[in-house]
C-alpha cells in the first residue's frame, strides 16, 4: 500500500494498539465536543484536557500540534483580522488607523479558532494513529459493504499515482510551450490542456480494472476472508459505549452552556 496518501505514524503506543473502531469513536467524541461546546474558552479547555492527553498517549503530541497549527493558522489569522476588526458596531478595544478591534469580534475569533483546533485535531489524531488498511479491515469485518471498502482502499492506492501523473502532464505541456504563468487569461487558457489529458488518460484503464476484479471473484456472494487480523481487547466494546455516553453528555453540556 502506498503511504503517500496517509499521514499514519508507526509508533509503539497504547493508542496505536486500540481497535480502530474504538479510535473512531474517540475521534467522533472529540469532534462532537469541538462542534457542540460554546465559545470562547470551553473549547480550549476540552482541547487541553482530552485531545492533548490522547495525543500524548499515542506518542504523537509534537506531530499533532504542529500539523494542527499548520492547518489552523491561516484560518486563525483571517478570522482575527476580518471578524475582529470588521465586526459591525461592537465595543472598540483599540484603534489602528481607521479600524478598531471590537470586543465582540475578538470573542468570536477566539471561539472560532478553538473550534478549528478541535475539528482539525480530531481528524488528525485519528489518521496519525490508525493504519488505513486496518480501518478498512475492521469495517468490512463489521459488515460494511465490500464495494465501499474496495473504493476506499483503491483510492488510497490510486490517488498518489494520479498526483504524479498530473505533474508529469504539467511538465510535458510546459515543455511544448504551454504558458502556465502570466495574465489571468493566459492561465485560464492553460486549464483545458492540463485537465483534459489527465481525466481522459485515467478513464482509459477504468474498464480494464473492472474486468480484472470481476474475473477475481469480486462479485461473488458470501463471506470473504481477511488477510490482516486486527486484535481487539475484551474491554473495548464496553469502552465504546462509555465514550458514546460521554459524547452525549458533552453535547448536552454544550447546549446547556450555550
Amino acid at each position, binding site marked *: 500500500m502506498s503511504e503517500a496518501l496517509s499521514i499514519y505514524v508507526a509508533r509503539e503506543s497504547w493508542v496505536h494498539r486500540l481497535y480502530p473502531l474504538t479510535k473512531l469513536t474517540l475521534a467522533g467524541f472529540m469532534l462532537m465536543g469541538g462542534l457542540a461546546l460554546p465559545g470562547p474558552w470551553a473549547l480550549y479547555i476540552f482541547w487541553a484536557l482530552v485531545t492533548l492527553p490522547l495525543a500524548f498517549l499515542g506518542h504523537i503530541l509534537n506531530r499533532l500540534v504542529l500539523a494542527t497549527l499548520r492547518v489552523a493558522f491561516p484560518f486563525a489569522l483571517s478570522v482575527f483580522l476580518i471578524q475582529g476588526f470588521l465586526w459591525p458596531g461592537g465595543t472598540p478595544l483599540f484603534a489602528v488607523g481607521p479600524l478598531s478591534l471590537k470586543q465582540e469580534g475578538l470573542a*468570536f475569533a477566539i471561539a472560532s479558532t478553538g473550534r*478549528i483546533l478541535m475539528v482539525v485535531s480530531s481528524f488528525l489524531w485519528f489518521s496519525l494513529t490508525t493504519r488505513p488498511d486496518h480501518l478498512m479491515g475492521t469495517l468490512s469485518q463489521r459488515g460494511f459493504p465490500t464495494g465501499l471498502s474496495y473504493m476506499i482502499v483503491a*483510492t488510497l492506492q490510486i490517488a498518489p499515482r494520479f498526483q504524479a501523473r498530473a505533474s508529469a502532464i504539467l511538465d510535458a505541456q510546459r515543455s511544448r510551450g504551454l504558458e502556465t504563468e502570466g495574465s489571468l487569461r493566459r492561465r485560464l487558457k492553460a486549464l483545458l490542456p492540463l485537465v483534459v489529458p*489527465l*481525466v481522459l488518460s485515467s*478513464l482509459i484503464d477504468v474498464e480494464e480494472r473492472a474486468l480484472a476484479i470481476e474475473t477475481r471473484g469480486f462479485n461473488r456472494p458470501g463471506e470473504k476472508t481477511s488477510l490482516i487480523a486486527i486484535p481487539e481487547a475484551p474491554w473495548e466494546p464496553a469502552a465504546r459505549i462509555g465514550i458514546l455516553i460521554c459524547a452525549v453528555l458533552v453535547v448536552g453540556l454544550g447546549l446547556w452552556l450555550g
Partner: protein
Amino acid sequence: MDRIKKDFSTLTLVMIPVAIAINIAVGQSIYTLKIPLYLDSIGTVLVGVLAGPWAGAVTGLLTNLFWGLSGLNVQSAPFATVAAVIGALAGLFSDAGWLRAWWKVILAGLITGLVAAALSAPISAYVYGGVTGAGTDVGVAIFRGMGLNVLPASFAQGVSSDPLDKATTFLIVWLIVQALPLRFVMRFPRANNVKAA
C-alpha cells in the same frame, strides 16, 4: 432499490476511486495555475452524470473525507455533505436531460454552485468563523466591511465564486463526455442521459 443496485455496477465501483483521485489531482494542480477556481469536483460531477445521483453523492462524500483524513486538506472534511449534494445534483440534472445542450450544462452548473454556496455558508460560519483561510478571504473582508453579518458575508463570498466554479466544472465534464469513446460511455448505467440513443 433495484435502480441503485444497477447504478453501482462494477464499472461504477471502479470509476469512483478514479474519480476521487481526479478530484484531488486536478484540485491540487489547479493550485499551481493560481486561477480563482477550485475545480475539485470534476470527478464527482462526472460520476454523477454517468452513474446517477447516488454514485455522485458517494464520490463527493468520500473525496472530502479522504482529503481530510489524508492530512492533505484537513479543512475540507466538514464540507463532505456539500460535496455529496453536488454529486447528487449532477446526477439529477443529467437525469433531467440537461447534459445534452451546452447552455443547459452551464445553467445546471450555476444552479449547483448556488446550492453549494448556500449549504457551505453555515458550515463555514460555524466551524471556521466565516473565513476560508485563503486568498478568497479578500471577498469575505469586503462583504464584512459593507456591514454584512458573519453568515451573509460567508454566503456572499460563496455566491461570488461557487457558481462560476461549478459552471466551469460542468462544462469541462461535458467536454470530457463528448471526447470519450461512445463504446466506453455506453457501459455506464446512465449513459443514455448524455448521449442521444
